[in-house]
């Protein structure tokens, strides 16, 4: 009873040990989620299932060009969803060309209407925004379209677009603020260039476009713009798809080059000027070589910057609550339970340091985190062997190690790479390339030839890769793969 008395005297100390800072009154909310994107919404909806009082704050600071969007985050509004739809639009254009060889007859030349496509895409996105709002309201999650920032322990300030400020307190917070496109930092970039944040709702056809960057965003956008019939040039500072298997990255680049995308390698823009007004008008880009003093100029209707994305962590008051961020990158380091250095503050999604920037990863992390917090679960998010797909004109699906990383980790003599070109049956009749599609697996010799890397370049790469990712998660070996009878005739059988 002496012990009990002691704890009663110091309940605050007990609470502190559990990562909770005590306050006199109870908090407004059990959980406040800052950011209504893939991760934030998944976490909020999960928490509501356990009858927690949850608030979601979502706010989109308009782009320099004035673009903004509704609830749902990057993926839904200016990422995966519109990207895949426009990629599909481009693929359909190709299919129309192929269709003649399969007997379809149409006399007119086929043209593409940017506005029709964009309106359809935006209408679909609008239904998703609405769907999320219905889902939140239905599960009693409070949603505010307001910019959230920490002002003190357990307290955030929410400012709406009219400037009205409100304060809220919560026992726990999840930061899921995501990222925004980076600008070049050269004259004319913010005034004249657009980013992926603007592209998918652009109210006029972009015309002749310069895409600056070599990220998957740059290559995917360049790919579908070219597929829609536009004159596209990609300006690359050094390598393509940094972080991806370079053998595959180069094959992607080659394919795009052979199919009408121009590349300017080893140059960076140093100035962007407007030459002619209009939608889109004409811009002049001056660029400097990265290997010498050469300067080149070019004129384009649109300049699309896709040189990287920066986390939205610098202006949300993290200093007021002591959350550490990587000062250089803005990313937030967390432990394997997505907890920051401040015990009651968690973070998920693209803003995390050294984690994959993918929607399904953010969703998984958010859900598992909430289950651990409120449902006594212990499962942590598995960031290993996460499959991805790049939706360039020739799609690239991958799971596991790139060849370079496998060599680094296991040693060149300990890995075996099996590879093959293949010619999709659907490409034979219309005489499309017979030596471009390609697949390879990387095996760890010392571990029963376990498949540690899977890479495929070809149509429907995402669909193909998904199943193999599950097999890899189960410890697929080369022998098991060989023992699996193929489905014929499909690309995946290779």
């Amino acid at each position: 009873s002496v012990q009990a008395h002691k704890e009663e005297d110091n309940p605050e100390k007990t609470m502190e040990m559990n990562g909770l800072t005590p306050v006199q009154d109870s908090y407004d909310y059990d959980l406040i989620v800052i950011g209504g994107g893939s991760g934030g919404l998944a976490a909020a909806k999960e928490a509501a299932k356990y009858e927690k009082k949850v608030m979601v704050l979502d706010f989109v600071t308009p782009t320099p060009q004035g673009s903004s969007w509704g609830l749902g985050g990057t993926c839904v509004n200016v990422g995966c969803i519109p990207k895949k739809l426009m990629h599909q639009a481009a693929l359909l254009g190709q299919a129309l060309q192929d269709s003649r060889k399969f007997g379809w007859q149409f006399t007119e030349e086929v043209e593409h209407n940017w506005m029709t496509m964009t309106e359809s895409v935006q209408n679909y996105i609008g239904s998703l925004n609405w769907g999320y709002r219905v889902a939140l309201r239905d599960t009693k999650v409070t949603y505010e379209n307001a910019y959230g920032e920490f002002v003190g322990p357990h307290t955030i300030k929410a400012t709406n677009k009219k400037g009205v400020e409100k304060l809220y307190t919560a026992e726990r917070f999840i930061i899921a603020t995501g990222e925004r496109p980076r600008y070049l930092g050269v004259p004319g970039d913010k005034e004249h260039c657009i980013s992926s944040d603007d592209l998918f709702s652009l109210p006029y056809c972009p015309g002749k476009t310069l895409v600056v960057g070599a990220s998957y965003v740059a290559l995917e956008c360049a790919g579908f713009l070219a597929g829609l019939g536009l004159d596209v040039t990609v300006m690359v500072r050094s390598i393509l798809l940094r972080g991806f298997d370079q053998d595959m990255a180069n094959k992607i680049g080659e394919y795009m080059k052979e199919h009408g995308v121009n590349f300017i390698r080893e140059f960076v823009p140093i100035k962007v000027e407007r030459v002619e007004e209009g939608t889109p008008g004409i811009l002049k880009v001056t660029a400097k070589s990265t290997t010498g003093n050469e300067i080149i100029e070019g004129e384009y209707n649109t300049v699309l910057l896709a040189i990287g994305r920066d986390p939205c962590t610098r202006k949300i008051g993290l200093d007021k609550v002591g959350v550490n961020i990587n000062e250089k990158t803005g990313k937030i380091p967390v432990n394997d339970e997505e907890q920051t250095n401040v015990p009651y503050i968690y973070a998920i999604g693209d803003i995390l340091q050294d984690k994959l920037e993918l929607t399904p990863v953010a969703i998984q992390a958010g859900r598992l985190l909430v289950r651990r917090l409120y449902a006594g679960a212990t499962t942590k998010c598995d960031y290993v062997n996460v499959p991805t797909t790049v939706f360039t004109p020739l799609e690239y699906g991958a799971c596991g190690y790139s060849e370079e990383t496998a060599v680094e980790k296991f040693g060149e003599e300990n890995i075996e790479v099996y590879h093959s070109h293949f010619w999709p049956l659907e490409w034979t009749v219309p005489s499309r390339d017979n030596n471009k599609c390609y697949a390879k697996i990387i095996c760890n010799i010392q571990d029963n030839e376990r498949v540690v890397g899977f890479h495929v370049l070809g149509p429907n790469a995402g669909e193909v890769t998904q199943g193999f990712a599950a097999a890899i998660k189960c410890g697929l070996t080369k022998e098991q793969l060989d023992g699996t009878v193929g489905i014929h005739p499909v690309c995946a059988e290779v």
Partner: protein
Amino acid sequence: MGWEEMQVRGYLEFVRTAQRYHGRPIFALFCGDKDAEGRSWCPDCVTAEPIVRKELHNLPDESVFIYCLVGDRAYWKDPNNEFRKNLKLTGVPTLLKYGTPQKLVEEECFKAELVRMLFTED
């Protein structure tokens, strides 16, 4: 000026009415026809209508609320009826904000909170 209600029957009348009020916020509730006693063949519509009507006072000024009877059950079940084909309706009752992707379908219309959100939020 507050809001006003228009009652219409059938697709053509709906479209003509919506066009007449182009420029003002238009909300529409689509229900199955009512018999001589005033009961609809659509049970969910019977449930939803009073709930929706109770929230009408939240409509923004200048709005138009179109109460539209779509037709009899056989007409509605036809997969090619104009409401399905042109307005992309998938069920009755449907409550929507015309010209936007914002809508509530079937049991969603039973929830006063959601109806209020549709009427009052952007």
